[in-house]
């Protein structure tokens, strides 16, 4: 391999070339790194606490106290969400006197037909502002939901058929509203796929006079479906922007879908439930957690059902819990896997809020 055969000309002094190389390719780059923020070579990497050298540290709190409220939202914003944000403290659970629903779904007389696609499409055209392409797609998805056994209860299917999923998706993803998958809605959250929503809704076995609490409003779609089945829907969202987004969707469509006026919502930490409106006949949690929040179990009525995804951060399995209180005061929790048919009934050997032990012969585990 040969080098270029250079023309005859005067070469710059060797020290000049060497110096230029050192300056340009060593010193200047080092200076740049010294100036770049966030690394440990330069100005911003020094002068931090000696024991935490090269790291950024916030001052430690003198004492960590529980928050005064469960939310840091401003009063004006909470007003927009209709319900003042409250502390989710584990207060004593008192049945709250529920006012009459803004719209009673049991008074609806017209129901979407399920015997023929064309008739369904025509009915939706007459009774909703939804466009035909979405209505057709919704029919097809409903069929798949039934075929796959995700939901077969006609009431759940009707709720699905009535709810315009496309309104709750991001506009850019609306074309995929009735696909078989979850989709992002921003803030790291997704709108669950229609099969999962239907499956969970059916497992909830919800009726019009029952109060249902949803933890994790997200897109607002699940609560919209629930509002087709119950007059009393409560929903809590931790991310303010999502809570506001869902709120605006409900407001926008409340004329065409008056049942959305039955959805009471707030922006707060759902871990503590909603004591002011407890107890709830049904609780549906749509955010994963590594345990079942005790306050939610407390706020469940006897006979109540809770659906909750439980497990490590990497993935949870939806668990169905049924709470029963026997006449003798003993409590029963039944755990079920809503997909795989696993069931387990567990018995709790404590009974009342007083914490009095009432161990009895039938409160032992169901296996010797």
């Amino acid at each position, binding site marked *: 391999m040969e080098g270029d055969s250079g023309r005859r000309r005067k070469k710059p002094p060797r020290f000049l070339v060497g110096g230029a190389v050192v300056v340009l390719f060593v010193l200047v780059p080092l200076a740049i790194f010294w100036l770049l923020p966030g690394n440990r070579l330069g100005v911003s990497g020094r002068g931090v606490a000696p024991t935490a050298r090269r790291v950024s540290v916030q001052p430690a709190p003198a004492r960590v106290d529980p928050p005064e409220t469960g939310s840091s939202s401003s009063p004006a914003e909470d007003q927009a969400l209709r319900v003042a944000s409250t502390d989710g403290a584990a207060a004593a659970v008192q049945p709250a006197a529920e006012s009459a629903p803004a719209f009673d779904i049991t008074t609806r007389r017209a129901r979407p037909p399920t015997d023929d696609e064309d008739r369904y499409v025509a009915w939706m055209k007459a009774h909703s502002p939804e466009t035909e392409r979405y209505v057709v797609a919704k029919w097809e998805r409903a069929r798949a939901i039934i075929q796959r056994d995700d939901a077969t209860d*006609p009431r759940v299917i009707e709720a699905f058929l009535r709810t315009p999923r496309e309104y709750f998706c991001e506009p850019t993803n609306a074309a995929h509203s009735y696909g078989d998958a979850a989709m992002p809605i921003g803030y790291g959250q997704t709108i669950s796929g229609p099969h999962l929503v239907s499956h969970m809704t059916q497992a909830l076995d919800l009726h019009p006079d029952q109060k249902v609490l949803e933890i994790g409003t997200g897109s607002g779609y699940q609560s919209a479906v629930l509002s087709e089945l119950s007059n009393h829907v409560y929903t809590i969202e931790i991310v303010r922007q999502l809570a506001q987004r869902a709120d605006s969707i409900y407001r926008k469509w409340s004329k065409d879908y008056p049942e959305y006026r039955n959805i009471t919502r707030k922006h707060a*930490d759902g871990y503590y439930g909603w004591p002011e409106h407890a107890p709830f006949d049904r609780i549906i949690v749509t955010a994963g957690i590594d345990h079942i929040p005790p306050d939610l179990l407390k706020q469940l009525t006897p006979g109540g059902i809770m659906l909750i995804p439980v*497990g490590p951060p990497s993935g949870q399995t939806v668990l169905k819990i049924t709470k029963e209180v026997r006449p003798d005061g003993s409590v029963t929790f039944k755990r079920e896997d809503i*997909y795989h048919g696993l069931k387990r009934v567990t018995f709790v050997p404590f009974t009342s809020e007083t914490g009095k032990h009432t161990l009895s012969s039938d409160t032992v585990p169901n296996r010797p």
Partner: protein
Amino acid sequence: MTNRLPSLRLAALFLLSITLIAYELAVMRTFSVGSWSNFGSMVISIALLGNGLAGTLLTFHTRRIRENPDRWLSISAVLLGPAMAGAHVLAQHVPFNPVMIAADWTQLRWIGVYYVIYGVPFFIGAVFVAAIFVGMQERVHQLYFWNMVGSGLGGFVVLGLMYLLPPAQLVAPLVVLAAGVSLLCFVRQDPGGGLELPLGRMAIAAGVMFVSIGLIAFHGGIEVSDFKPISYARHFPDARVVYHTYGPTGEYYAYQSSYFHFAPGLSDNASLNVKEMPRNAFLGLYIDGDGPIGVMRDLKPAEEQYIDYLPMSAPYLLLPKPNVLLLRLGGAIGVYNALYHQARSVWVAEPDATLVHMLRDVPFFRAYDNDRLRDPRVHVVHAEPRAFAARTARRFDLVEIGLIDSVGLSQTGGYPLVQNYIYTVQGIDSYLNCLTDDGILSITVWNRLSPPRNVPELLTTVTEALKRRGVKDPGRHVFVFDYLLSTATILVKSSPFTEADIATLRGFLQKTSFEASYYDGMPAPAKDFGAILDAYTNQFRSASAAVPSAASGDAATAPAAPVAAGEEVPDTSAATDTTSPRAPQATADTQAEKGLFAGVHRGTAGTTALQELVPEDLYYFTMKWLLTGKAQELYHRYFFNIRPATDDRPYYTGYVKPSNLLTVLRNMRSLSEEWGYVLEVGTFALSILFGFLIILVPLVGRWRELFKRQRGTVRVIVYYGALGVGYMLVEIYLIQRLAFFLADPIFSNSVVITAMLVISGVGALVAGRYRGSRTRLMAYATAGIAAAMLFYMLGMPPLLDALLGLPLLAKMGLALLFVAPGAFFLGMPFPTGLSSLSSTRSGLIPWAWGMNGALSVTGTALALLISISWGFSVVLLAVIGLYVLAFLVFSGNLVEGSA
């Protein structure tokens, strides 16, 4: 030309090799921080395929390269820096969203865009390498040596950079290195024989470098996916970063927020018995955006009550004031648990030095948890858990492994297929060695897979460990309990559990409602286990195998009623029937066939058996079959691979049997957790496809030239294919096998990759100086490789076990020694083959280089697939087979007349 110019070119190759490997690792870090570490394998494949593509394309231009190699080298060197910077910046703007793939398959196009964007710098680098091999083919062994040494050091260079720079800035210093490469290429020889660096060209190199650095400085921030867990925490209204640091093990963020709640495995009974759950008591720690790991403040006495309802509390009931060893620190909640239960001493073995430093030394954390880790009873040791267990002379009343897999898993819903030496037969054995005579090993894991996989696998592993220790009646030493879809805990006691022990534990289960799964003397469930095993298998193999929906209860089998068009129907089901949703449908069968509900038939064979099966039954029968000589039948009949994990097959999460692969693929909807295995199979298949493309492209239009006029092309393909696959099999094996020996995969990756490449380079150099026949040299090399593989198979494992307790530096030195014999001989065949080609068909050199690179991807995936299913021994046997094949091809004259 004096002798100095070629030396400068070799230096350029050395520097470029450092740059390329460092860039590869920097891109992998970028993906880890911004999206998912699973993209790491994609980066490797992009790099190797870039190699392959460049090699293949340059096959057509060897004549031009030979005419003016410096032009090719200079141009590719100048372009490398901006290409690296540009790719880094551009890739941050790719709107790829993995969450949307299921809804919108066109998202996959963005993966193709990643290949194009990152493929450019790797392609350019590979052009440089191929060009220098063609231009300096008379020095092929030297080139190979410096390429290998540079690549090897690249790993260490980037490791050092990771300490100094955050992930977003890692590429910037590599741009400076690339500028150095171009400077070395710009140096030319003047007529007087001296060397000259023209100022104009230097200015070009400097200008390109500064523009590239500016690009990274102003636009190089890493876009973190909205779907990384850390993104979610950032939206908590009161979240604030309280700590941030970075290093080779990851980028760490600690957030404080009242919205963090941790109580893994908490019994439902806590809801009625615990007055107060901890409030605003946690920090969430994220590593590379994954997590959170909970860090708990000091609790008030009333808040501590919930700890009694955690599964990890069980062993403490049998051990008053125990000496405890915790394997992994997590957020130190395990330490709190131990201190809460009056532990006399708590030792923690944690391999993550950053985590240890953070929780023990940083003032914020010290104040937050009230100096928990500086409690005189607490001793945190920076060590790999097994290494600590092997070297400690202490004996503990309790060794606890508590939900250490709850973090660090992939966020895509499955689990990663990486080696895990914590849960192997040898691992369990080493923990049992640390126990006192009545000590207990407590393992708590998640119990969420359906059908169960990880818990049965642990049971087989624990039982096998006990058997190998010569324990007379292993069943008497084991107590297992679980909580449906929550956690499972396996207690293994040095001495048999006494009746009093069992009564105490059953009392705990009664209090918490956890379920007993197995203990000695437990009544057997009245079920036919064989039928249940068959039902599982049939469930997946049946084409119509819908998973039974217990959630829908009776509703699932109830006929549904359609509603006729326009029908005004009072909402009776809603208004009048609040107890049953099924009432109105009973008589609507005829209409049902027309509408939405038409043709719906539910219910499958085997449903009953499956619905009757609860995990406790499976665990009970697994133990029973293991203890009654039916282990082999169990392994054979269960749908998943639950054979004991060993150090030879350390894949706790490798559950897919190759024979069931197609069935798993057909059932991915219900077996989505197995995506990791499927991903590997997909990578393997794709690499073969790409490999073939690399091989076939040069054939287009050159068929006659390659196969008719000159014979031996098929041999070239077989030879370099075998070397490409074989070399990677060994490298991946050594990385995996030495991972736990060196305490951390980071060290094992660096040491093995560097040692392999450098020592292989030395092997190449030695081969180049060998003056005898090439065939004889290849015979020596093959024999050396076979001997080294046999050493790895038979000699190294016991040595690793025996030396595990040595200090890290000593172990790194030993690892070098272990790697050396294999790497030395593995370095010989490739340049010897090239040397043969250069003397007869030098035009094929870039092609051979590219093919070797492309098939290296195949080797990487294949190594993993073989080890998961059959273990490392089979991998090593495959290596021997491949190199013997290569030798046979070579000795049959790789290219006619070359040997």
